[in-house]
Structure formats: C-alpha cells, structure tokens
C-alpha cells in the first residue's frame, strides 16, 4: 500500500497526528512523534507519547478506527493514512534512538517556519507506546485543488 517513496516521506521527520473517535462518533486526536512503515507498506507503527496515548487508547481499543495525518513544512506536502488498529505495546528501548532522531528532524523543520527549537523542549518524546495499524487507504492532503484525492 505504502510505496518506498511515500514511506521515506512519512519517516522523514514531519508533523504527524493520529485521529480516532468514540462510540458517539466524537472525534479525538493526539500527537505522534514518529512512525515506521512495516511489512512492505501494509502496516504502519505510530509512536505516541505515553501521556498522549491515554487520550486515544480507549477509542482504538473500542472500535479500531484510526487516521494518521502527515504534513511537511516548508512545502506543505501532506497526506493521510487511514488504518485499522491491530495492537499497541510499550515501545521497545531499541526504538528510542529511531524515535528521537525522527522527532529531532521534525523540530529542525519547524525552524524553517520561524519556530525556535527551545519552545518545544518540554514536550514528551519518550517513553512512547507503539500503535500498530493495518493501512486501509491513502489520501493526498497537500493544500490545493487536488486535496483529498486517493493516492
């Protein structure tokens, strides 16, 4: 589903959010600090800080519906990955370097739109929970007339 070019983009170190919903169709969302594309692009693992996962974990466990949105300043390339929840576990210590490196690259990107790194230094990065999703659909979300098209 996710080809190599898109996988490289998703793992580049960009802005990522995860969206969920509850039984009342009330939307919910949290910050993701890194992702890893797995199994030839059929699955994706989202690393969510422990204090953030509390917000969306009940939704994921209850109905499994999830959406990940990605955006990269300064060119504003953006896409959305729809998925179905498979499982979540405390992220392994071996993943810490991978997660922190991806987050750092994102922070460095933020400087291109004028945000000093120091403003985000207190945000949680680690420990994380690894949320594994099966990818069901991909959409282009780069702003413009073609936003929303299936990838």
């Amino acid at each position, binding site marked *: 589903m996710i080809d190599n070019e898109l996988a490289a983009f998703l793992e580049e170190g960009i*802005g990522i*959010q*995860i*969206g*969920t*919903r509850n039984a*009342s*169709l*009330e*939307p*919910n*969302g*949290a*910050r993701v600090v890194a992702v890893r594309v797995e199994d030839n692009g059929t699955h994706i693992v989202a690393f969510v*800080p*422990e*204090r*953030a996962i*509390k*917000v969306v974990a009940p939704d994921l466990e209850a*109905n499994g*519906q*999830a*959406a*990940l*949105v990605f*955006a990269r*300043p*300064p*060119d*504003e*390339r*953006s896409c*959305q990955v*729809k998925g179905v929840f498979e499982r979540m576990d405390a992220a392994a210590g071996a993943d810490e370097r991978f997660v922190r490196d991806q987050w750092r690259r994102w922070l460095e990107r*933020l400087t291109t*739109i*004028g*945000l000093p790194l*120091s*403003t*985000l*230094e*207190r*945000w*949680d990065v680690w420990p994380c929970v690894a949320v594994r999703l099966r990818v069901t659909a991909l*959409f282009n*979300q*780069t*702003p*413009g*007339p*073609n*936003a*929303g098209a299936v990838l």
Partner: protein
Amino acid sequence: MKLGLEAMASCFQGLIPAALFTCSKDGTPNAAFLSHVDYVDSTHVALSFQFFNKSKRNIAENPQALVRLIDPDTSQGWRLKLRYVRSETEGPVFERMALRIEAIASYSGLKGIFKLLAADIYEVLAVEAAEDEAAIEVTTQRRSACVDPVFTMQALQDLSTRIHRADSLERLLDSILEGLEASFGFEHSMILVSTIEEGTYVTIASRGYPEMGVGAEARLGEGIIGMVAEARKPIRISGLIRQMLYALAVQKRAHEQGIVASQRIPLPGLAQPDSQLGIPLLVRGELVGVLCIESTHPYRFHEEDKTTIELLGSYLAIAIQNMQLQERSTADVAVEGGGSASRNPPYVAIDSEPPAQKPAAKAGKAERELAYYAGEECILVDGEYLIRSMPARILWRLLRRRTAEGRAEFTNRELRLDKSLNLPEWKDNLETRLLLLRRRLDQKCPDIRIVPRGRGRFALELGCDVALVERP
C-alpha cells in the same frame, strides 16, 4: 487545567499549524492540518473553508470536531472540543478572514483561486490542556514582546503631538512614521497615496528600510496594500512566512492541475516580514492613502487593536488631507500675494512646446541622459528607471523649460495652469506629486534637485549637465 478563549489569543495567530479531527457518519475518523483557527468570541471559533474536502463533508454529517492548537509563546498544546454551528459568507468574521487570505493569495499570484468560500463557525464546548505538550517558562521579555498592548492612550497622544508640530506635508508624513516607531515601536512603515491612475498607489514616505522605496507602486487588489485599498478596511496578517508557504503549496498544486496563476508581486518592504498591518486612510469615504506597517515579529499586531487602528487611520487621513489642502491654498495665496519667482508671470499658462535642447557641456561637470518615453509616460536616467505618470510629466516639463529658457524657479500655480500636464481640476494633489518627485530625485538622481523656495514656489537645480531625449 482549563482556560478561556480570550486568554489564548496567541493560539489564533496561525503561527503553528492546527490539527482538525472529524468523523463521518459511518464512523471513519479524519485528520487534517489547518492553516488558521480564528477567534470569534469567548465561546466560538471560526475555521476557514477554502476547499471542499473530507473534513467539510464529515461536518455536514456529524457536527462534532476536535481542534488541537499550540500556543506559540508557551508551546502549551490545547484541545478544543467543537460543535459546528453555521457557515458565514458575509459579515465581519468572514470579511476579516477573506481579506487576509486574499492578500496572501495575491502575493502568490493566486487571487481568485486561493480564496475563502466560507467562515465556518463552531461553538467551543470544552478547552483542555494537552498533558504531553507542556508549557515552557515564558520570560517577561518574550511575553511582553508578544502581548503587550501597543495602542495605548499615551502612545496615541505622543503621536498626536508630533503631528501637530508638522508644518508641511513632508514633515507631517515623516512625523507620522517617526511617531509610529517612537511611540508604538513600529520600526518599518510606509505611506502610499493614490496616483492619477485609478487603482494605483505610490509610496510617498517610508521608514526603516535599507532603501527609501519612494515611488514604489501597489495596485488595487494586490498584496496587503492593494487589498486594503480595495476593501477600505484594515488587514492584519500574522505568521506571514508560514502562510505564504501554504499559499505557494497551493500554487504548485494549482499549476500541476493546469490552473495558471497570475504573476507574483513582491512583498512591499521587508524581504521576509512575519507580520503586516495595512490601514486605509479614509476621510468621509475618500481613500487618501494606505499606511502599511511591517514587523519581523510573527504576530506584532493584535486583533483586539482593530478599533484603535481604524481610529488611528481616520485621524492620520484627516491630518494628511488637511495638510494637502492647506499647502495648496497657501501656495496659491503666496504666489498671488508675493509675485512670481520666475521671469514669467505666474498666471500665464505654459502652453507652448519649446524644443528640447542639449546644453553645452561644461568642463568637469558630469552629463546625464534623461529619456522620456511618451508611450509609457516614464523617465529613465542613464538607462535606469526614475519615475512615471504625472510626476514624470511634471519633471519633463520643468527640464524642458529650464534647458530652453534657462529658468530655474517655478511656481505650483503655473504648473496647475499648464494644460499640457492635464492635472485634474479638482484635487490635483500637486504638492503631493512634487514631494514624491523631489524624494525620488533625492534617492535616484541627486544631481537634479527640486528645492522649495517658500510657499508655492521651488527651484529646479542641476548639479550636472543634462541631455534630454524623447522617445516614443
């Protein structure tokens, strides 16, 4: 931890992209980044609707939404639980958002393509702090640079005092810009006035830029100045760099879709301003000019200052218009009462067309070629653009008279009576145009000077020999 929307002003500046979460009727969540979330009142926000997309369709099916915002001062993350109320396609909220978007679109050549379709109004049901996105300690200096009110009564009074001391249009314009810096801390500002060409505005005074920029033009509907002139309302843009990048992303996509964007226009002053404020200078519905203030701070100008900004614009407009009228009337009276400074009677219209002459070159004096392009109505000095339109016609007329007759002094009155200049009979703004011409010469060709010689008269001084050339 809970907080009212009023205290979250910095979150609504569009500096950090917000995230919008919605859900379709069949239970599929959707996540998207947003260019801007606007504050409406203590219980409502507005989201810009620019493109039909999944979020919009979801809201039509299920009005619940969540927005995640970041405070750019403290980095605190916030969760706003929302319920869609209505879409507005007119009214103050829509106008404010639409003008800002159109100004940005025009910089990107996307006016009419990148536009606001509606301002979607949402009720805020709850505001929660994101635990994983904690605030940093904010220094007093940092906080005060961002949220301190700038339009204080004291600052307004200081500006007023400066304005009252000005005794000429030139001093008045400079005093306004000096006062904006001294009293309000606005270091980069410019005033544009209307030209004889409808829909064109020209910079008459500027402050805080490496080059004076006098003579730089803006057209109706282009950029923040053109949009202010068109809408006759103030426009405030924060986080301009990010929003420009967003617009350029749209432009790229539009180009890929075969939609041709018009030519991009340059930003007015600073190479990379991060916030801009445009103020219409209106007197009884007449647009006297536009004041544009820029800053490298991401959000230097605040929405809550809007009323003061409009008031300030009206006050400055009245001061400028009064001075224009005063200069005109005193110029005419001075000439009538004081006789002519020239060898020609001031009341005699200049209606003959003396041939252009090349003065004899004098040893040690540089020679400059001034070329008048009649079709374009512009003058080039040694091949470089100097000025166009009415000020160009005036300069050309003066140069021809000077070289043909040896006259150095002229009166405003004789220019007014000169039919070849085709000045408007009513509100010709001649003094403003002469000031523009004088400043433009100072900036681009200091060898040629227009020097005031009292009310209503001036001298054209040449520090070089001039060769006058007319081209079609």
